């Protein structure tokens, strides 16, 4: 895949980056806030990534568009909030959310690896897959993946195994599951405790105590309200998706019943029993079917894909709701302000009924995880060996690259992620990420661009940069780096050979979107069939 052009903006202002080459690119500027991160995040966001835009940039107000090509086919994708439009071959596909886009992506653009997660075999999420070759500027934490939550480190590692065809049992996965089980059991017992407290009918409330704590109580109530609203919104979205899923399931049943011809009897002469009776066809002379079996199969496949993507999205939202509900119950364990006080003054925060449902959900999840652990325990050890070898290969390559960049460096990479309390920072983190991306790039040879925003973060010295650039060039893929330089360093990339440099120094600080691009953006957005109604 090669990124060709990136657009960001709306009908009034925008920015266009059209100078990317298919080789190694460095976008640089002499100061921060010149729009480099916005362009990079906008590009990945339009491709279905979960974004980390700089604070203060209202990305949801804008259209994010990327032109790219893959295997000699050109694509153009436009995203605004969760609506994604894809243009190819003269037709436009519309997607309501990233999951739907992901299903199309894996079927028609680039086949994504499949991993085993939450008891199902599923297509890797784009926000996880992209981390194999994309590192953003903010929220770097070498002990975790980016957007850690639904997807975790074990999923990242499972993607690597899947790409080499050695999925299955993973050492880390089973441990992860056992941890998960422990946490679920804890959550369950917490909820049961909350449940018991709420059921108490003790109404001995002291007004004095309320007056003393009024401020804290009020702020706590505000927070709970906010959480409640969020939960309600998620539940609404979930219901909408559930409805759509059911609608599509019913459509399949309807189509199958339509496809049955009515059984007609045979005309027989009552006198002689012969069926040689003339029949006059009323209207049409010719008897072609309305469709053939291939067409019908393709239609049913497309509906099943939709159902799959809805199921995916519903699971994700269920997890988000679960997390929020746990936060709610955590807020309510604060001993400073008694639960009864809150209940007395705000009745509708949550109900015993809802907690019971949550406990039941947790029970279900506990059973799922137990089943998975059992399944894993009865797997082969051969795959484990191959997986161990792959991780070793990646780490060896990482150390080799690290030593080339920093021959006197003292870090030792013994895992793809650092331990929880050992988060690297500054130039060490940068060297870690660069080594990792290089190693994965070399071993997996994915046909995807390598993108690092702020590739010299922590002030990597120029000789080190040179080594990095030389090595990444050898990977023979499109590479996009960004860097913030000191004013006196501004010309330094001029003598790096065979690279494309883009100077963002002249962009207005903190305002990359400008009115002079409005016309181009408007035309581009219109190209997706979208016209603004004032």
């Amino acid at each position, binding site marked *: 895949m090669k990124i060709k052009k990136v657009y960001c903006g709306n009908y009034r202002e925008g920015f266009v980056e059209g100078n990317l080459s298919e080789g190694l690119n460095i976008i640089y500027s002499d100061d921060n806030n010149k729009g480099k991160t916005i362009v990079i995040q906008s590009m990945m966001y339009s491709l279905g990534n979960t974004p980390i835009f700089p604070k203060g940039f209202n990305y949801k107000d804008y259209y994010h568009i990327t032109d790219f090509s893959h295997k000699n086919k050109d694509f153009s994708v436009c995203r*605004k909030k969760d*609506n994604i439009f894809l243009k*190819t*071959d*003269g*037709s*436009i*596909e*519309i*997607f*309501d959310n990233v999951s739907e886009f992901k299903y199309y992506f894996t079927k028609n653009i680039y086949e994504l690896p499949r991993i085993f997660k939450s008891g199902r075999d599923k297509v890797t999420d784009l926000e996880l897959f992209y981390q194999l070759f994309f590192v953003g500027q903010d929220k770097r934490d070498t002990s975790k993946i980016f957007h850690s939550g639904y997807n975790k480190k074990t999923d990242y590692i499972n993607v690597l195994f899947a790409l080499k065809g050695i999925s299955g049992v993973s050492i880390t996965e089973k441990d992860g599951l056992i941890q998960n089980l422990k946490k679920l059991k804890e959550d369950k017992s917490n909820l049961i405790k909350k449940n018991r407290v709420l059921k108490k009918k003790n109404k001995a409330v002291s007004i004095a105590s309320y007056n003393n704590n009024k401020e804290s109580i009020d702020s706590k109530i505000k927070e709970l309200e906010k959480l409640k609203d969020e939960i309600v919104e998620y539940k609404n979205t979930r219901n909408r998706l559930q409805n759509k899923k059911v609608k599509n399931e019913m*459509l399949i049943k*309807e*189509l*199958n019943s*339509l*496809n*049955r*011809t*009515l059984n007609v009897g045979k005309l027989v002469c009552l006198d002689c029993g012969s069926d040689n009776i003339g029949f006059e*066809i009323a*209207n*049409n*002379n*010719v*008897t*072609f*079917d*309305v*469709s*053939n079996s*291939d*067409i*019908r199969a*393709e*239609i049913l*496949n*497309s*509906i099943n894909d939709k159902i799959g993507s809805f199921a995916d999205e519903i699971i994700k939202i269920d997890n988000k709701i679960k997390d929020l509900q746990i936060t709610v119950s955590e807020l309510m364990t604060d001993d400073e302000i008694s639960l009864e006080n809150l209940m007395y003054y705000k009745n509708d925060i949550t109900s015993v009924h809802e907690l019971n449902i949550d406990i039941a959900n947790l029970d279900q999840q506990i059973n799922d995880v137990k089943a998975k652990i059992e399944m894993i325990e009865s797997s082969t050890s051969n795959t484990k060996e191959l997986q161990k070898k792959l991780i070793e290969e990646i780490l060896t390559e990482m150390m080799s690259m690290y030593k080339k960049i920093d021959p006197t460096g003292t870090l030792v990479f013994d895992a793809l992620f650092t331990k929880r309390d050992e988060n690297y920072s500054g130039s060490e983190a940068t060297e870690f990420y660069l080594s990792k991306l290089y190693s994965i790039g070399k071993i997996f040879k994915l046909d995807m661009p390598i993108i690092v925003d702020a590739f010299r973060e922590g002030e990597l010295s120029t000789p080190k940069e040179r080594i990095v650039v030389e090595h990444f060039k050898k990977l023979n893929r499109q590479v996009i780096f960004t860097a913030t330089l000191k004013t006196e360093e501004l010309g330094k990339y001029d003598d790096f050979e065979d690279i494309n440099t883009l100077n963002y120094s002249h962009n207005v600080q903190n305002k990359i979107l400008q009115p002079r691009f409005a016309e181009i953006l408007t035309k581009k957005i219109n190209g997706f*069939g*979208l*016209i603004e*109604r004032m």
Partner: protein
Amino acid sequence: MTYKVTSTEKTMDPASTHETKALLYVMNFDEDGKNTEFFIVDFFNDLSSCDSFGESRVDIQSKANKNVSGKAIGRDLVTLFKNYISEFEFDKYILFLGGVSQTVRIDDTLDVFLYDNVTSSSKKSIKAGLTAECEKKTYIDKSLYSSKDIDTFLSEVVFVIDVRSKVDYVREVVKVNSKNMPNDEFLNKVFKEIRDEQTVKKNINTENVVLTAFTDFQKYLKYITKNDIKMLVLSRMLGATSITKGTPTSFSECLDGTPIENRKEIVEESRNDVFRMLFDKNNADEYWKLFNTVYQAIVSFPKHTIEELYEKLGNDVFRPVKFLNFMSAKFFISIVKDGILNED
């Protein structure tokens, strides 16, 4: 004791396939075939054709064998000759062959040729074969022709050797956008549908029927129209490609003013209605009528937008298929319009 089933469809297969190729050849590759409206099956001959008024008549004999020699060619010409000397006049006589042996043609790069491209030795055997066969056949009245008639007939016959694959023929039937061209496997299945329909027509028994006018073939329903075939192929091509994928570009204008969040739903609903229409086995007549009407409207008014076409067609045209509403009707029009190659 075992019994082997023989002489069934498998052995008949090459012949009926060849007859379908003959039909599609006349439809798409013959100069006079452009005016053809009716393909008459197994009536005057294996295949005959004429225009909307029963004129521009072409008579075709189809023989699938590949290595045919002069004598066999002569024998094969007998039914064409029978029609030549009959009351009904044809404008063209075609012998559609699978192949000829090496000695037949003078210039063997020509796949479509007249008698003057036949070697003199083959000419002798062809004439001999035809004359002998005429003697044999009871349905040829010997008083109605002379040796001179055979000579004039032979100078008029067009010999066509089939050099194309089944898929080549199907591709020529209707012009679609390249993105709407399905793969060969699919096109082969469409060819089979045409062939099976031809077989259905063959099975209508008309032995010993006496005709007063050429156009009497219509009473016995032994025909397929060019339009039937064009609509079948176009409908299959669109069904294989456009129906499940994406929003046709021309439909975007019908979504003007709709908020972004609702567009997907409207497109989905419209597409589902079209799915229902395509799965409804029991309403085939109405479907083909509608498809034909929409196609004709699009081709007659190529510059019209979808809204304008919808206005022109009116609601009543869409009611009989039962599953379309005002939105999905427009969606259906867009699929067809975007699928056809725009000649401008």
